[in-house]
């Protein structure tokens, strides 16, 4: 049913449709509206789940680790500092191969303290083994949450999935969103079954330590599961389209890139703004396009390469920076495209929108314009110096 609602409420309704039995969270802006809404749904009897109010994000992640290990589908959400406090547990959840789903309401990290949006928080977990999906708009936010459980719980994957949505821009922005029917979601997402769980009738040990004889193989298995995810995520998106009639999710989405000469690669809500600029440039006769990365981890290297190999000028526009190097997505893209056949002449890196700085259409135009000049690797857009 179509509703005009806030992004956070849309997340809550999507999570409700996935029927989790345990939700645990600690409040942090801009994640709060998501978990407040879930708590209200439970309090109103519209949703049957245990809501555990914890004393920290570290414990929030630990609670849902415990509940998932007991075989109950679970959910948590966080942002920024909360994400960083959680990160020890996030690595552990992935290593224990627990198919949890969480939302990261993307926000800048301290210092200086800043509650506004960028993607530096979730970027810190890019090596954790979690699958990371980045949403462009609130319809995608809803669809990705529903797909996330199906991806995580796939027996060939068994890795946790985080859906990243830009704080405030999406969490607090109201849009018309189609909330799917429960019957269709039930058809798409079967009940959760965990084979290695805490069960008194089959008393296994979970989380035994692995010495040098076994540890490498445990990490290798996670890498294999990530490779499997690259095959399965598009299948899940196909199945989603069959049931819900909507293209959503997958690995990447190209917009007017087929004959493009200049393409910006980006993730999250900024893609919407770039699409508008692309339309304007096209109207002016310029061959511009945008490539959206939906699945950032596992990084869909081959798909990205095939989409970009004939594009001469490429820019990566990202709301994160690996300080001392360049933007993380830029680094990833360089490693994928370097030394490969094609028409690529430059892959420039731009950092934009940190700490909630507005990204205007003009600033995106500037990026397109500068692409015809020399390659840059870590250019901060819109710097106010002096």
């Amino acid at each position: 049913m179509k509703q005009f609602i806030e992004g956070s409420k849309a997340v809550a309704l999507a999570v409700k449709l996935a029927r989790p039995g345990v939700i645990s969270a600690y409040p942090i802006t801009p994640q709060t509206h998501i978990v407040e809404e879930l708590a209200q749904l439970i309090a109103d009897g519209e949703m049957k789940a245990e809501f555990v109010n914890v004393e920290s994000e570290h414990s929030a992640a630990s609670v849902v680790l415990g509940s998932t290990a007991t075989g109950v589908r679970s959910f948590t959400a966080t942002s920024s500092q909360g994400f960083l406090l959680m990160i020890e547990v996030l690595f552990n959840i992935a290593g224990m191969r627990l198919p949890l789903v969480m939302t990261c309401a993307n926000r800048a990290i301290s210092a200086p303290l800043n509650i506004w949006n960028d993607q530096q928080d979730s970027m810190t977990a890019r090596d954790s083994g979690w699958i990371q999906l980045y949403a462009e708009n609130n319809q995608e936010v809803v669809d990705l949450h529903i797909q996330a459980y199906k991806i995580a719980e796939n027996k060939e994957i068994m890795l946790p999935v985080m859906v990243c949505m830009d704080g405030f821009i999406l969490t607090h922005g109201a849009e018309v969103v189609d909330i799917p029917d429960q019957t269709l979601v039930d058809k798409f997402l079967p009940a959760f079954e965990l084979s290695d769980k805490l069960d008194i009738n089959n008393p296994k040990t979970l989380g035994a330590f692995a010495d040098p004889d076994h540890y490498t193989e445990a990490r290798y298995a996670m890498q294999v599961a990530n490779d499997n995810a690259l095959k399965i995520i598009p299948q899940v998106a196909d199945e989603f389209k069959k049931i819900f009639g909507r293209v959503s999710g997958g690995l990447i989405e190209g917009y007017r890139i087929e004959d493009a000469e200049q393409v910006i690669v980006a993730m999250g809500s900024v893609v919407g703004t770039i699409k508008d600029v692309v339309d304007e440039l096209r109207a002016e006769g310029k061959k511009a396009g945008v490539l959206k990365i939906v699945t950032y981890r596992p990084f869909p290297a081959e798909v990205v390469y095939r989409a970009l190999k004939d594009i001469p000028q490429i820019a990566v526009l990202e709301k994160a920076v690996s300080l001392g190097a360049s933007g993380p997505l830029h680094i990833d893209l360089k490693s994928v495209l370097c030394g490969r056949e094609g028409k690529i002449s430059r892959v420039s890196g731009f950092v934009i929108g940190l700490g909630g700085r507005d990204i205007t259409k003009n600033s995106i135009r500037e990026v397109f314009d500068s692409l015809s000049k020399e390659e840059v690797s870590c250019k901060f857009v819109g710097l106010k110096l002096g």
Partner: protein
Amino acid sequence: MAEAFKTLFSPGHTACAGCGQAIAARLVVDTAGANTIIANNTGCLEVFSAKYPETAWGVPWIHSLFENAAAVASGIEAALKYLGLKDKINIIAQAGDGGTADIGLQALSGMWERGHDILYVCYDNEAYMNTGVQRSGLTPFEANTSTSPIGKILATGNLRPKKPMPEIAFAHGIPYVATASVGYPQDIQRKVKKALAIKGPKYIQIHVSCPLGWRHAPNLTLDVSKLAVETGLYPLIEYENGKLTQVRKLTKVKPVEEYLKSQGRFKHILNSPDAIKLIQAIADSNIEKYGLIEKKA
């Protein structure tokens, strides 16, 4: 052959010979029985009992991190509630003293405050033994550890008394708090049984000697642990529903010196009457505070 061992904590684990924690952990799980799920913090117990691909545990058991067993157990409890299985299954969270009183205290406080139906067991061997006997918040006054060493200039051991964990637990208003000692195995069984019959959060702190860290012969684990109780340094107490209900009375109080000289970690103060006096004062204060001596009519 394996079936000959009627325990849920099997032989073949890799604890040091004479490990007090291994004794207490077996008593706890065997008293709780097969309908039990355990969440274990990182530490000696976790490392010596669960080295992939083997495990000593005969109950469902999970290890996540150093500081989060109380929160993981809270999640297990929530999941069992959701599944309608909570009343049929005991949940135990367990850790060493560092995992409990230091790094895990916040998660533990949260578990108590939220009122989860979980028994938390702290195996108190009074230092970070797993990493090589570093000082923890439950290391006793003057103990020589690898991070409170006896030096040429600084010739004292640990400068602070033990963090009062039972009182911290008690202050949370939870229905059951007890201390126990591996020197009194049947008392551990009784307290675990009693705790598991009570709904809500429970805390039992078991004093478990570590022959390696305390520096005594491995066959003296129980004797040394007993001396801590008999001197008044480790009072065995029970708080139920906000009241001190039981204490183990001492018929003959032994001088703390007897306990101190049984271990290498206090060797540096054996010739220091002043230091011994300070430790005797801790024991005397415990005896007074908890009424460890039967008052004559």
